[in-house]
């Protein structure tokens, strides 16, 4: 670019060109910003749009499969998994049968930082491998860092089937 050309341009400019140039540069930048926004809004919108999954009752087994007083791992599939979710569409829960008709289902996610807790049948405790959080059989905190009891899933009995209501990962502030 030859600076002389620009110089000449300025020199020849009529007085009204100052406002014309200001208008043109604003127009240029403004159009750029609008074009950017036109592209950014749908992109950001897509990224911020988190997938809401409707809750659904999932059968995890027949009533008689579960012993009274026992806690076992059950697993179920997300209500509407994405077709490519593969094994990640599965969720595990700890199901405890308290009586003939009463079942409790606990999330496996430790309330401390979300590691999967394990059930120690002989000790009657849940234990977290990450920082040694311990929960009693009813899900209340027995020891270690967890701030809250294990979250529960709603359970119901439908005919001779035990069903769990799926829920989002229980992240709480």
């Amino acid at each position, binding site marked *: 670019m030859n600076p002389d050309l620009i110089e000449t341009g300025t020199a020849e400019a009529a007085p009204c060109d100052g406002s014309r140039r200001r208008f043109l540069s604003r127009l240029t930048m403004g159009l750029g910003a609008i074009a950017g926004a036109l592209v950014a809004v749908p992109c950001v919108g897509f*990224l*911020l749009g*988190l*997938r*809401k*999954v409707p809750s659904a009752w999932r059968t995890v087994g027949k009533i008689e499969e579960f012993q009274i007083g026992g806690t076992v*791992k059950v*697993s179920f599939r*997300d209500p509407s*998994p*994405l*077709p*490519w*979710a*593969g*094994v*990640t*569409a*599965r*969720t*595990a829960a700890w199901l405890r049968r308290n009586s003939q008709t009463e079942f409790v289902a606990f999330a*496996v*996610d430790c309330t*401390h*930082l*979300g*590691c*999967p*807790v*394990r059930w*120690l049948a*002989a*000790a*009657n*405790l849940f*234990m977290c*491998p*990450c*920082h*040694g959080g*311990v929960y*009693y059989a009813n899900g209340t905190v*027995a*020891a*270690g*860092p967890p701030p809250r009891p294990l979250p529960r899933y709603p359970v119901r009995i439908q005919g001779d089937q035990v069903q769990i209501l799926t*829920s*989002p*990962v229980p*992240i*709480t*502030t």
Partner: protein
Amino acid sequence: MQILKSIWGWFDDLTGVSSWLIPLAKHPVPHARRSAWFYVLGSATLFVFILQVVTGIALASGYVASAGEAYHTLAFISSTRFGSIVRGIHAFGASAMVILIGIHAIRVYLFGAYKYPRQIGWLTGVALLFLTLGMAFTGQLLRWDQTGFWTVVIAAYQAGRTPLVGSWLGHFILAGDTAGGATLSRFFALHVFFIPAFIFFFIGFHLYLVVQNGISEPPKAGRPVEPKTYRKWYEDLLHRDGIPFWPDAAWRDMVFGFLVIAVIVGLAITIGPPALGKPPDPTIIQASPRPDWYFLWYYALLTLIPRWSESYVIILGPLLLIVVLILLPFVAYKGERSPFKRPWAFAVVAFIVFMIAYFGMLGHVAPWSPRMNAPPLPASVVGVASGPIADGAIVFHDKGCEFCHAISGYGGIRGPDLTYAGDRITPEQMETRIYSGAANMPSYNGNITRQQLSDLLAFLSSRRRGPAAALPVSSSSQ
């Protein structure tokens, strides 16, 4: 040869490449003399970044970013001969990049090279440091084995500690209500497009600033930076004592960069890539997620701070670090550059290195994690094959005591070692503790039968020093 020359001449005439490339390559830089080898760290980081881009592209051509398939594609890549080497290079390259950018930052800090007029250079470097850590984090996760999967979940829970928006933020990381199909694709896009785009931008800006402001001269005690006169003084220095960057300084960059790359490739060939864990199936409960080494120290730190402060440290800790790093070049923009005149700079660096090494080591051992795979105590440790003591040893394992308390080297180290429990505490004290529990120990009240308790106490009381421990005649209590 003549032909090549004339082609180049034609190309150069039309593009003018050499008219800016040659001055750029030959621009004068300070003669660093004995400090010259300190100046190779930034370029080595850049070389490793290029290495990561190249191996990353190679890996991406075999990787399917789908929550259901990624694990299998990674297993496939690792099963091929060169694929496994490429994965190894990418993994060791990631470590090298974190290490090099860290040492480079330390070097710049110690040399006071962030002072006028290089403040923005420092800030772009800080951006690159955090972007690199972002790459390290997302990269470990793309392995998408069990640890990769739970890392996302744990990250989401950590983000969940943010006040007000925590729950949303946590689910934003998961890309929905649960960790599933949508989660991995996002981290793939982050790792492969989003963060690298920013890295490219900041590297360009960083290098531009290096040329624009000149490479900092080695500091000298008693020669403070005075913003008013510095540029002029620096010009004179280059004039007086400068050497052309190419080849007088560049050869060192190349030698060191070559060594780094040779070591990385060598490690990739001899040691290979990190092993794939179990598949990312959330119903496989047998998982003990651990971060890769770059975040191990942070993970350990979070575990060891007092529990009430956890939520603050998780969120405010990294924020504070960023703020300090950003403020540094504004607060300390002039004055002495030499670390010998800024002895606290050595202290700061020593503190950071110690923290990372010490907590990293702790994180590696993870004394706070129960050893949930500890086997029942062998007869050689128990000392007897039957009777209350032997039964007590089984109770000790089955009730989970052993996962936290070690005996003769078996078991966890979260709680006190009980190898010589019988010497230290009476059965009555043991019983109280077992019934009442403690902050990190569950109460076994209602969770243990009379018989089990008396066996357990017999066993624990038999844990004594000396020959008595080997052949206890009978339980000393109950």
